[in-house]
């Protein structure tokens, strides 16, 4: 069977001016994957994410969504592709002048014809899913960092996106909440059929939920390993093993 990959990254190079962050990235994310992009701090994980979601044009190469070249389609088509994505940013990126309920409701109001009552029900449900039931009327400035992150995930899930891109979901969360978030990510994949791209260096998440992965290397500035992260523990590149075992080999 020759199935079109859900997301395909082809010959991608990310750079700031002359400084190349990552080059020659080639990988495929299949439907239903929980795809982990891992690597040390500063290796370019978030920069790669910005190329995936249309915030930063790559220096070279491109990204395909179901065969459509994201960086070389017209703006309307690009906007349509973006609507299939739900993004959770590293710092939450909640709109500070809106309450949590308004933050989650905004995509629903903009892109659906749902009645206000129905939107309120959905918002309450999404906030409950991330453990924030009852915080609807809070402003982001009244929340802790971990709560902001969870609210950001609720907003990313608002439209039941086909693809969820999540930047550092567990950092700054207590172990129990982080584990609940991992369970939620698994359930979103299993129940709603979402494809999930997770940018993280949290080992528990990488090994616990990842079905496929790439490792971005800081020295060679390119990917040095692909495949199931649990397999990388034993058979991957020594740099990857070193990373996954916290230097204890």
């Amino acid at each position: 069977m020759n199935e079109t990959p859900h997301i395909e990254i082809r010959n991608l190079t990310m750079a700031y001016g002359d400084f190349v962050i990552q080059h020659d990235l080639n990988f495929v994310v299949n439907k239903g994957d929980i795809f982990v992009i891992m690597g040390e701090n500063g290796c370019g994980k978030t920069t790669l994410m910005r190329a995936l979601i249309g915030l930063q044009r790559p220096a070279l190469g491109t990204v395909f969504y179901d065969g459509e070249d994201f960086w070389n389609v017209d703006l309307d088509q690009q906007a349509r592709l973006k609507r299939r994505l739900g993004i959770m940013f590293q710092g939450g990126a909640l709109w500070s002048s809106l309450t949590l309920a308004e933050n989650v409701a905004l995509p629903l109001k903009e892109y659906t014809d749902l009645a206000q009552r129905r939107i309120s029900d959905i918002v309450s449900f999404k906030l409950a899913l991330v453990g924030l039931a009852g915080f609807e009327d809070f402003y982001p400035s009244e929340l802790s960092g971990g709560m902001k992150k969870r609210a950001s995930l609720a907003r990313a899930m608002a439209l039941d996106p086909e693809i969820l891109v999540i930047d550092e979901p567990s950092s700054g969360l207590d172990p129990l909440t982080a584990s609940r978030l991992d369970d939620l990510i698994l359930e979103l994949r299993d129940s709603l059929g979402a494809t999930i791209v997770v940018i993280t260096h949290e080992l528990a998440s990488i090994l616990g939920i990842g079905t496929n992965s790439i490792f971005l290397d800081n020295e060679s500035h390119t990917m040095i390993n692909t495949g199931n992260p649990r397999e990388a523990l034993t058979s991957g590149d020594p740099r990857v093993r070193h990373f996954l075992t916290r230097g204890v080999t």
Partner: protein
Amino acid sequence: MTFTHPHNSDERKWQLDIHHNGNDLLVVSCSGRWCLDQDLPSIETIQVEMDNALGRISFNTTQLSAWDTGFLAFLQSLLSLCAQRGITIDQDGLPKGVRHLLAMATAVPEQKAAKKRRKKQSLFFQVGSATIDFFRGAPEMLHFLGEITVSFGRLISGRARFRWSDLWWEIEEVGPRALIIVSVISLLVGLILAYLGADQLRLVGAQIFIADLVAIGMVREIGALMTGIIIAGRTGAAFAAQLGTMQVNEEIDAFKTLGLSPIDFLVLPRMLALMMMVPLLTLYASFVGMLAGLLVSATIFNISMFEYYNETLRALELKHFLVGLSKGSVYGAIVAYAGCLRGMQCGRSAESVGEAATSAVVTGILLITIAASLMTIIFYQLGI
């Protein structure tokens, strides 16, 4: 009872069947497509059925072809309604994924204590609150003024701790970089003043006194006032935004925890820079304004440049410059004070930074206007 999608009978659309089975069991059958792109039923649809005495609800979803958050939100509302009425729910008939997600949504109990009651407030209440806030803000403003005074005391006694490089950077930022905007505004104000004067003085054949009007007006009052207002909009807002962002990023807290005074490190260089540069900018603005008067008089009103120059020299005295410079210093201090005050009072959100910048400009211009009036009266009484 059967409910269907209201718009067409396509079998892919949702369908809801409710029937009593036995004494106290209500069976809810959901079939078809229960997704957000459908006009799904609200909980009120089955509320009437639930009003009849019953003890349990079960589900039949064997004909359910697709579902998403729309279905989950419907069920969540149903669950909370049942919880309020003490009705037992049997979730076995629901798809596995639905049961898991509903379990996750109820895993962390709702923080009822956190729920806010936002009441609509009357105009009377809002005006009262604003007045109280204003008077509560006054001691805070005085406290900040006191802190700055103490910090200046430390500077004079050589104990203030700040980086001199910050001061030079601020001087460059607030002085030379403001020259273009000060030049443009002063040129235009000088031009307006000359035209205004010429129009009135022509009536009595004394057009040469345009030079007196422009020179004394720019040097004593308008040069300093315009510079103060320009700097309030340009630099005061920038100070508030810089310090406000530092509040958001906890940079000011980091100073405090290190035992360093944020007033010394952040406010003092800004105050000094503006107090030094605004008088110089005032002087510069006055000369540009006089130049505009000269150009207008020479080209439009046929007054020779030499005559205008002599009349200007005759009109100006040292005291006029001293008045202008002292006003410039005060306005500079006011702008720095307002900008730093609002920045240090800033909250911890992006919105607060915007509010701080706006408030800095408003406070700065208001205080400048009050100071200008007071100083004009004082100088008049002193005969200066």
